[in-house]
């Protein structure tokens, strides 16, 4: 029979819609509205997984996101997701699921040998062994341990899905839609406040959806929930987010929500994201995350078929599934009794209710009796039988002495347990609030609010339907009042039934078995037993954090939601200290495991980081140019022609530039407009060079230091007018130079009357370099006399290029006659294409950054960030000439006077020529005085730049070498793995030493 454990009626599933799915390849049926867990249970499947360490057979324990055992892999369209909780996976037609951490099959898992060897694997055993022989750790032990550990299989293919992101603001965010959450949302929404209500489940209503014995305003609680949701849905000021987990509570009331958008659909719309990240800034937050039932820590409490009482009730009432045919209920509190009653009412045989309390409420006993249920009080489960499914339980009688006497064995195929309830304080704790111990409730509950939040209902340890509703309404009103200052009259709904229960237990359940032999699980997934916790204490672990880390309790994928309080109580007993003195481990985000893709959102490929393109970009793409990444920019690296490799292309480009003309896109250079009466004074203070006497229309190379005295940037600065400078910076340095300038201007020298504006994006810049540069640009430039006399090297003038305004610089980073034309960015493409066409007439070439580097290296010009590295002073770089000697102050001046910066033996910027002109040094190679230095010999310096120089037809290099300036003509060595390379120290200018070519 299909779905033998399905009830005949009831539940919120759609019995009209049958869905097929597979589990480990076996085809089964379920209904719309099922979770994978409820559908498996309907088919009588309890064994769904294997534990982490001992590979014990495990079944479904919960009906919620705290599930530790029922973790499955889901396959879909070639994508695979490991470790999903079957209790959260909504059933859809064709769902494919597999069990995990077993080989070769779930039923027969060879890893289960660990279970037999478990006496050798107590908590922390790996710290005590696997140390001999030494080399075996990485090679033998670790690979074996790693293969055994882990749960599901990692995804094999890149994810096909995409993810969304929304930023939202709201007045009141309500997390959780049980009775108190719904009431809070309604009360807040009635004031007109902007409300977001989220719930991790598919359907709103929380515990109301499985509450069969109470009513609200005379209605079935689930119906009341549906009506309330409908009411909220009709309000414009309310956003309802189901399948949405509030997983992180950050500073300043910033909450992160994970919305699962398509995971539950059989054929998702490809346009929709799989999940969506909501980043919400809420004025007020209502935490209505409920409470979680605690397992009872009795021996062999981990067999399939053993689950939480409330889960059993949820499967019955919400999903129409009977968890077994013969059910034993073991409890320490009232609420589990209702599960027994509901099951009995559905014709399930409840073999007994074993309540460990001496005197459970008479009212409950009489209801049980009326249903013919055997009641055992003062009775505990002391063990269970059955391997892949529980088949019987051992009972024990609690004696007044504290001892336990055997009370026989009872057959069952399911065991529902309840050790009481633990409020879900994760979000409160993440908000940095400190939980306080409530001895009466035996629970940690939220303490003082440190952010604008309030916990309500079971999340703060307040139970009972009516109390939760009232608390929720009041909290919603308060939250709205605090957020928008308004109140509204809300009629409170009245509940009958659903009273708060009493009772509960923490820690290990007493038993009459051999304590050294039996195991009672505290943390199911990580296989931590009560004995492990006691062992940790015995070994000196006193803090709960040590116990957690040593035993790994609470570190599984449920993050200790089921285990923490029991572990704490056991530790407290072993330490003979009250629970509150043992401490509590910190609640970390995320509340439940959250997909990486959700965080990454659309940040992939080109959206990973903005791509900045210059005006020539498309043209270069068409020409087959090769780009390099420089910061966020794409810069043309070189322009291969006719199958050239980089070396050939660069050799050609360099040669053409020196012989005729080259065109280079310099748009990426940073540009800053410095304007105002004190503009010169400002630059005087920022840069090492003097600026006051620079005439308008002239340029100067500027060197920028930090106040420590080290070079941080450089660039040519042109004076356009008395009060206006056009500053250029390096490509990578543009943002930091600008913000450094703003910093000094605003905070150190607010007296200066200067405005600075970043204009990097405002101008497109074309560099035309080479003997024919003037001829190339002349046809397009108007209003500027380009003759050498009127417009000498290091000049700047404003004019037009093809009729559009331009700033023309006569500057050179190649050592050739050179111009840089700045036009408004929107004309950049026109300028580039015009010039590219024009240079062809002169047999010119476009060139990229690699040739630019070679050409400047031939001239010994530094590249900040390559030849300097943040530890280099102007003196080191051989640029004392750039320091204004008479200046009162500039950034870095005082720093330069520090003893180490004026010390002898500092690295200095030099040229290097290999003895063999064909040998090219590697950039970054070290330099020594000894030909064959011993390991550990301090280096004398390193090669900063190294190229083949087409102009010299040999290799050249630049380097930083200790006392290098004094070593000119000397031989040093560059030790390489295959031998030392002798080099001669030279000056840094290799080509046109007198600089004649630039002044034509």
């Amino acid at each position: 029979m299909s779905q033998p454990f399905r009830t005949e009626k009831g539940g919120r599933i759609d019995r009209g819609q049958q869905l097929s799915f597979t589990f480990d390849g076996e085809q089964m049926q379920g209904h719309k509205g099922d979770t994978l867990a409820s559908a498996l249970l309907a088919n009588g499947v309890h064994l769904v997984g294997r534990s982490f360490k001992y590979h014990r057979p495990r079944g479904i324990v919960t009906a919620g996101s705290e599930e530790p055992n029922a973790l499955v892999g889901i396959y879909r369209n070639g994508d695979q997701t490991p470790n999903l909780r079957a209790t959260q996976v909504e059933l859809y037609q064709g769902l494919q699921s597999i069990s995990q951490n077993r080989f070769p099959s779930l039923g027969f898992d060879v890893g289960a040998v660990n279970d037999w060897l478990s006496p050798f694997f107590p908590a922390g055993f790996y710290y005590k062994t696997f140390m001999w022989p030494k080399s075996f750790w990485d090679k033998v032990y670790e690979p074996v341990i790693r293969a055994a550990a882990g749960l599901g299989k990692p995804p094999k293919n890149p994810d096909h899905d995409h993810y969304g992101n929304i930023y939202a603001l709201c007045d009141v965010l309500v997390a959780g839609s049980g009775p108190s959450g719904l009431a809070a949302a309604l009360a807040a929404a009635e004031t007109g406040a902007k409300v977001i209500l989220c719930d991790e489940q598919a359907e709103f209503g929380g515990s109301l959806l499985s509450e069969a014995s109470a009513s609200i305003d005379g209605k079935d609680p689930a119906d009341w929930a549906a009506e309330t949701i409908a009411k909220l849905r009709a309000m414009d000021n309310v956003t309802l987010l189901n399948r949405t987990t509030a997983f992180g509570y950050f500073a300043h009331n910033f909450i992160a929500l994970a919305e699962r958008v398509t995971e539950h659909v059989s054929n998702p719309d490809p346009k929709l994201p799989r999940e969506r990240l909501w980043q919400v800034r809420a004025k007020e937050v209502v935490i209505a995350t409920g409470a979680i039932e605690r397992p009872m820590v009795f021996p062999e409490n981990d067999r399939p078929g053993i689950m939480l009482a409330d889960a059993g009730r949820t499967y019955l009432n919400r999903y129409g599934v009977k968890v077994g045919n013969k059910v034993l209920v073991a409890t320490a509190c009232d609420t589990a009794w209702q599960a027994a009653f509901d099951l009995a009412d559905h014709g399930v045989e409840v073999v007994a209710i074993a309540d460990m309390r001496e005197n459970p409420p008479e009212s409950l006993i009489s209801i049980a009796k009326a249903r013919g249920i055997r009641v055992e009080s003062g009775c505990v489960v002391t063990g269970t039988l059955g391997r892949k499914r529980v088949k019987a339980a051992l009972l024990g009688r609690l004696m007044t002495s504290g001892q336990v006497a055997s009370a026989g064995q009872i057959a069952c195929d399911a065991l529902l347990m309840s050790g009481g309830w633990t409020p879900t304080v994760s979000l409160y704790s993440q908000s940095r609030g400190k939980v306080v111990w409530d001895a009466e409730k035996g629970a940690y509950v939220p303490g003082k609010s440190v952010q604008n939040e309030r916990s309500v209902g079971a999340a703060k340890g307040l139970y009972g339907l009516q109390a939760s509703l009232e608390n929720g309404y009041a909290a919603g009103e308060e939250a709205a009042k605090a957020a928008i200052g308004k109140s509204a009259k809300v009629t409170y709904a009245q509940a009958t039934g659903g009273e708060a229960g009493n009772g509960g237990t923490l820690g290990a359940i007493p038993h009459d078995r051999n304590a050294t032999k039996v195991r009672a699980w505290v943390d199911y997934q990580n296989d931590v037993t009560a004995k492990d916790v006691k062992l940790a204490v015995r070994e000196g672990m006193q803090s709960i954090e040590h116990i957690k880390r040593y035993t790994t309790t609470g570190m599984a994928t449920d993050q200790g939601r089921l285990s923490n309080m029991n572990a704490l109580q056991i530790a407290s007993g072993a330490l003979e200290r009250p629970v509150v003195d043992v401490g509590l481990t910190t609640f970390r985000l995320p509340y439940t495991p959250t997909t990486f893709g959700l965080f990454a959102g659309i940040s992939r490929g080109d959206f990973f980081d903005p791509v900045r393109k210059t005006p020539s970009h498309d043209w270069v793409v068409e020409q087959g140019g090769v780009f390099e990444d420089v910061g966020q920019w794409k810069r043309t690296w070189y322009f291969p022609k006719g199958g050239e490799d980089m070396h050939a292309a660069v050799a050609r480009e360099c040669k053409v530039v020196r012989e005729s003309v080259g065109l280079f896109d310099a748009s990426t250079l940073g540009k800053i407009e410095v304007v105002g009466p004190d503009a010169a004074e400002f630059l005087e203070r920022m840069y090492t060079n003097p600026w006051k006497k620079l005439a308008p229309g002239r340029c100067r190379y500027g060197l920028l230091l930090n106040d420590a005295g080290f070079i941080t940037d450089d660039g040519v600065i042109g004076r356009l007018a008395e009060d206006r400078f056009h500053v250029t910076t390096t490509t990578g340095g543009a943002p930091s130079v600008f913000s450094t300038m703003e910093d000094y201007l605003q905070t150190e020298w607010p007296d200066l009357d200067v405005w600075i504006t970043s204009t990097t994006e405002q101008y497109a810049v074309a560099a035309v370099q080479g003997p024919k540069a003037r001829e190339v640009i002349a046809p397009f430039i108007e209003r500027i006399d380009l003759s050498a006399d009127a417009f000498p090297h290091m000049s700047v003038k404003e004019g037009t290029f093809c009729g559009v305004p331009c700033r023309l610089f006569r500057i050179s980073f190649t050592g050739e006659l050179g111009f840089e034309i700045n036009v408004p960015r929107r004309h950049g493409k026109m300028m580039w294409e015009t010039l590219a066409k024009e240079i062809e007439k002169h047999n010119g070439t476009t060139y990229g950054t690699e040739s630019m580097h070679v050409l400047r290296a031939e001239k010994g010009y530094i590249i900040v960030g390559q030849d300097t590295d943040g530890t280099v002073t102007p003196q080191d770089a051989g640029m004392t000439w750039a320091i204004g000697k008479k200046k009162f102050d500039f950034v870095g001046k005082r720093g330069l006077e520090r003893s180490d910066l004026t010390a002898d033996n500092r690295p200095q910027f030099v040229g290097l020529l290999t003895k063999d002109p064909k040998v090219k040094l590697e950039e970054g190679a070290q330099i020594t005085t000894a030909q064959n230095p011993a390991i550990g010999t301090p280096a004398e310096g390193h090669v900063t730049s190294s190229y083949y120089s087409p102009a010299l037809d040999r290799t050249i290099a630049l380097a930083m070498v200790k006392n290098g300036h004094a070593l000119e003509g000397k031989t040093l060595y560059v030790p390489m793995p295959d031998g030392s390379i002798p080099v001669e120290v030279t000056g840094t200018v290799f080509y046109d030493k007198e600089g004649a070519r630039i002044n034509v």
Partner: protein
Amino acid sequence: MLLIYCPYCQVERAETEFHCGGEAHIARPADPSKASDEEWVEFLYMRNNPKGLAAERWRHNNGCGRFFNAVRDTVSDKFLKFYKAGEPMPDLEAIAKEAGK
């Protein structure tokens, strides 16, 4: 992500609009040439790094571009005061007292 009030724009905006400029009220010596090595290292590198209230600089990078100062509790990350650059350093103890700490 912090929520920061810019005293120039007079709006609260997300932290990603701002850049933190470190400890506030560290004046660069007016005549650096007269500063001793100790004074210079104090200016360059020495920081209070307090656990508790700190006066720090922020710049509204993706807004008005102005630097301003703030008092923040470095344990809770709560801001207790925002004020414009150039205004004197507030009495942190008084602020702490007012905040009931």
